[in-house]
């Protein structure tokens, strides 16, 4: 194999790896299933770094004793949260350690278990979950207005969810529906 061919193989491998990162993101982002989650205010000392916004959601902390599910969670593993739209808000209705069968109108989003907090006795634990939609780079100057809305508790996030339950943030809106930021692919 010539030098040129060998290096072209390296280029092809590395380009394929980078292209897969983009393709994988696009496939989640392009999902036709979208849920709208309310964004919670966070500690101001840790919420915004430059153009990097931290977002937390109501489903970031799940009390499993309130919800049906198999309760077989391990730290670092996955938890599948079933969401259903009730009175205009997507709320968790079940949580499982494996992908459950989806009822019509329900959407399952996959989170990673960052913490399992056990209550007293044999009660099911509380789960601290991350969904890969918690940090967000925004263009210069757009971070502060988003931060202000979030702290007022008037920010929602539209999340595209694919068939495996992976989420991608598609847009940020005020609770009155005004769009604050829309993510584009290119």
């Amino acid at each position, binding site marked *: 194999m010539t030098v040129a061919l060998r290096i072209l193989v*390296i280029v092809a491998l590395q*380009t394929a790896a980078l292209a897969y990162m*983009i393709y994988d993101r696009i496939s989640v982002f392009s999902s036709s299933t979208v849920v709208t989650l309310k964004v919670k205010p966070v500690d101001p000392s840790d919420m915004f770094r430059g153009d990097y916004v931290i977002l937390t959601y109501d489903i970031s902390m799940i009390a499993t004793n309130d919800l049906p599910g198999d309760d077989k969670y391990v730290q670092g593993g996955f938890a599948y949260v079933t969401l259903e739209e009730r009175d205009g808000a997507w709320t968790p209705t079940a949580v499982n350690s494996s992908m459950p069968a989806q009822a019509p109108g329900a959407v399952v989003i996959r989170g990673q278990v960052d913490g399992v907090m056990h209550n007293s006795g044999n009660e099911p634990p509380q789960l601290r979950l991350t969904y890969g939609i918690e940090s967000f780079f925004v263009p210069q100057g757009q971070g502060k207005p988003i931060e202000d809305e979030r702290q007022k508790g008037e920010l929602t996030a539209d999340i595209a969810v694919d068939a495996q339950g992976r989420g991608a943030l598609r847009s940020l809106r005020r609770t009155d529906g005004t769009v604050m930021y829309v993510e584009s692919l290119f």
Partner: protein
Amino acid sequence: MRPPFYLRQLKRDLEEWIAKGLVPASSRDAILESAGAGSRTRLDLIFAVFGVILVGAGAMSFVAANWEMMGKFSRLVVLFGTMWAAYAIAIYFLASARDVIGQAFILLGVLMFGANIMLIAQTYNINAHFPDGVMLWALGALAAAVIAPSRAALAAALALGSLWTWQEFSYFDVVLHIPFLFFWAACAAMAFIFAWRPGVHLTILALIFWFVLNTEGFARLLGWGEVESVTIYIFVPLALWSLMQLFDARGNAFSVTGSHYAFFIFLVAYFVLHFADNNDKASPDSSWVIFAMTMSLIAFAAGVVGISRKAINIVDLLGIAFACVTTIAYVYLVQRNDEALDVPYLAFTLLILLWSLQRGVRTEDRFVINLSTVFFGLWVIYVYFVLFSDRIDTTVFFLVGGLLLILLGLGLEGMRRRLVATAPAAPAATGTAS
């Protein structure tokens, strides 16, 4: 691959042999070439590598400065374009037989690959398990090292692999990061195939780094106390050192370097063992007993084979046995809270140091002589602190301690010079270098 000290000595000897007419002058270059003297690190390579790093940093600064003005598609064009350009330039230089600058541009391509991973993740808000990004970068570097082939890419792969395992350990509390070992084994194989000395050093340092990070993980997984955990760094290096003596007999610089590292870690661990806490355990864990016995047997068996191959002698075999027995005995006794162990253990440490010094002189190995001398100095200072710090007046303690340090420095340096003078070079092919 021959050790540098062997090559330096060979050059000196060759000049002497040529002057005496024993070797024709026309054979000088061929002899040096056959010993690998031409493969030393070159200044132009160092300059080229620093140059491409600066070029890469400049390119990334330009991208960062104009990042906000670019759309996502433009960003992707710039990111992929710079990486492809680096590799295209590498092809140009390698094809025109300018290997040094060509290799430097392969390294630039690897650096751009990593920058692209990070910037694509930022552009698309990919909030994944972030050490995976570094792992992907390290794998890309290893692929470049294997396919090109490229030593610079191998060095980058080892550094990135170490960063990856550190992130897993520091940010995600991974108990034992086993995947790193597979990556490391692939890198070690490449360093061996390249017969590249800095690569050997980096490979060994990366493994030591992994062991240090994972010590607590071993202890937690096995239920061992601090004392038992420290013995990992006595038994494993000692067993490896004993095994490497068998390969030393063939003058393999790979094993010479490896055995130097192993012996250094063994000495450090033996020295610090009695600082470790016994965690109030009543007796050693059964898994530790199996581990200690197995490692001792491997070290001793390798020692016995080493004697038959004349790679080591009976003093070394006794040294191996002594180190294993005293370590096991210490762990058993300290578990019973026997506080009278300090002085005997210091005496054991002295005997190990004397063995080390004796071996260094016998095998004419400067590294071992220097190492033993430094450790002996530290041992004397430590003993002084342990025995006298609470028994004599503070003023006298520091006055005597200062005088001791001065005399020790002068005395040990004189001793070291005399010993090293008898060891002009470690014998790379005599089978006794450690």
